[in-house]
């Protein structure tokens, strides 16, 4: 187990084009994560769309890939140039990797035997892990005959048998598992994390997987880490509009607006906003050119719709209903006002007639150039 620290790590894949420029242009980087750290014993999820650099970051952590810039430290030791085996990392891949010709037992024993462990010790460890993963019934079977989820458990088991692994990395491990087994496997992973206190790093593009698995979620896009936080933080305070869009289903509503001293204006609709927040937003705008964008973000879950223009003494915004979709537990209304469309998650179907939208100020976030503005600066 180890604390894994990144210092100014960036990676660029060798391009096949014959560009002769030696300067590393920001746009060409597949990954640029700056300084950050995986704490010892944490359960992390790396979340982002396909091609955002998650797997690259994972492979740099495990040492399968050497970063083109920066350094990686395990417990303060520089391991940037160390091999995967030397770093003592375990990695579970998207597709189960097993040694076809070996039995399940030999598969699990393989990493231990490669490291020259004595045979009685090997069989003790293998027995323990097989029991934990519920593989003991198939220990003497050929690994190739097993189902995909059992094969994936073997891949995981080969990581777990080594007692001193620094971290276990998962690269979208549930891709080939069917939904029912997915749930079981994920629970197993959580159990293992609680039990063994290992650092787990889990790459996925599925937000529900990430949010249920991890204590800390890192959202990535275009090779950058946009935000790190608990699932709740990501939901409540997305640091970047991309995070707002990506987390939640549907994602956050973003409405471009003009910023005033104590309100924002969307065409001719005025939405009141905390003066301190507006002040910070204006300060930031002042440092940017005039193409800078301002928008507010609000989760569909926090919007309220009613036929009453004055709900609890607060004036609502008159909206027109564009469409209504039915889901099992809720309804999704798309409404518009002043040229802006916004989605509202509601339990009751809206009444016919005039509709008024309540935007709670405490749940409204302000974004300048897609980046969250904090009231405290």
């Amino acid at each position, binding site marked *: 187990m180890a604390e894994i620290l990144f210092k100014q790590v960036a990676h660029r894949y060798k391009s096949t084009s014959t560009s002769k420029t030696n300067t590393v242009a920001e746009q060409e980087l597949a990954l640029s994560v700056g300084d950050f750290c995986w704490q010892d014993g944490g359960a992390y999820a790396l979340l982002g769309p396909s091609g955002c650099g998650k797997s690259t970051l994972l492979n740099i952590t495990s040492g399968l890939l050497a970063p083109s810039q920066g350094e990686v430290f395990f417990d303060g030791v520089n391991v940037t140039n160390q091999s995967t085996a030397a770093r003592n990392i375990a990695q579970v891949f998207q597709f189960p990797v097993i040694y*076809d010709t070996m039995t399940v037992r030999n598969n699990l024993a393989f*990493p231990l035997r490669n*490291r020259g462990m004595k045979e009685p010790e090997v069989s003790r460890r293998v027995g323990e892990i097989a029991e934990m993963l519920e593989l003991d019934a198939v220990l003497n079977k050929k690994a190739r005959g097993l189902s995909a989820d059992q094969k994936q458990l073997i891949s995981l088991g080969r990581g777990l048998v080594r007692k001193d692994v620094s971290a276990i990395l998962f690269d979208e491990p549930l891709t080939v598992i069917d939904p029912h087994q997915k749930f079981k496997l994920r629970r197993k992973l959580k159990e293992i994390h609680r039990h063994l206190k290992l650092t787990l790093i889990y790459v996925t593009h599925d937000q529900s997987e990430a949010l249920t698995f991890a204590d800390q979620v890192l959202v990535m896009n275009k090779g950058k880490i946009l935000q790190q936080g608990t699932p709740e933080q990501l939901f409540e305070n997305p640091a970047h509009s991309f995070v707002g869009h990506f987390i939640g289903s549907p994602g956050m509503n973003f409405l471009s607006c003009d910023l005033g001293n104590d309100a924002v204006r969307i065409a001719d609709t005025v939405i009141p906003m905390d003066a301190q927040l507006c002040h910070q937003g204006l300060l930031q705008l002042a440092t940017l050119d005039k193409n800078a964008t301002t928008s507010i973000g609000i989760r569909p879950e926090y919007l309220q719709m009613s036929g009453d223009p004055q709900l609890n003494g607060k004036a609502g915004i008159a909206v027109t209903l564009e469409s209504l979709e039915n889901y099992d537990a809720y309804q999704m209304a798309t409404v518009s006002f002043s040229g802006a469309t916004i989605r509202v998650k509601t339990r009751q179907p809206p009444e016919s007639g005039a509709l008024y939208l309540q935007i709670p100020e405490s749940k409204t976030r302000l974004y300048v150039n897609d980046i969250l503005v904090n009231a405290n600066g």
Partner: protein
Amino acid sequence: MDKIKNNKAWFLVLPVVLLVAFSAIIPLMTVVNYSVQDIFGPDNKIFVGTEWFVFVLQDERLHSALARQFIFSFSVLAIEVPLGIIIAMCMPKKGVWVSVCLVLLALPLLVPFNVVGTIWQIFGRADIGLGGWALNALGVDYNYAQNAGDAWLTVLVMDVWHWTSLIVLLCYAGLLSIPEVYYQAARIDGASAWAVFRYIQLPKLSSVLVIGVLLRFMDSFMIYAEPFVLTGGGPGNATTFLSQYLTTMAVGQFDLGPAAAFSLIYFLIILLFSWLFYTAITHFSGSQ
């Protein structure tokens, strides 16, 4: 479920049956016909039953030809398969050299059998052949026309030169199809290069190797043109393999009866061994 009793579908198989009949069964039956008769002329033939089979099976020269054939075929496999795997593993996986390697390797495969024989026949000569001359210059007493061992080795080297590429190309394709994650997983598990070969590459190659071994066994078992061009089966009987012996019997001496009986036995031997190989290899890789 009740099956509908209708045998009309058999008519659809008829064209294939006819085709196979004309291409295989009828010629084969002609051979069977010859093998049970002693033929002196068009109107002068005697039914002899299994006499020719007994004669052929007891023939000393046939026994030695068969033994030579087996030694040759197994030597071919023992050299070409490991060598093919090694070359395939040494080949570059990408870049311009891939095409260069592939073209160079494919060249021998395109050369006709008797041309291969001619090339080596000249190449091995001590007076005008570069190979033979060089060996003699180095002090090796090499002369395939007089020395039985030299002739046998020359045929073996010829076959290795001609056909190792086939194994290389099959293995190369097999190696390329192994996903990169297997190698990554092996690195994570701390596997040695040997373990990677033994537990990842070899198992993944087993299916192409079955094909390769079968093809090379059958082909080498039927070798004819190369020893024929080189020494005509000599010196002595050193390179008289089964087909050579058969040809001498059928065309040289016009012993059609024994030759036909021998052809059938030859055919059955190849069939039997191919089947044995196939079952052994699939069973072996299945139970591993």
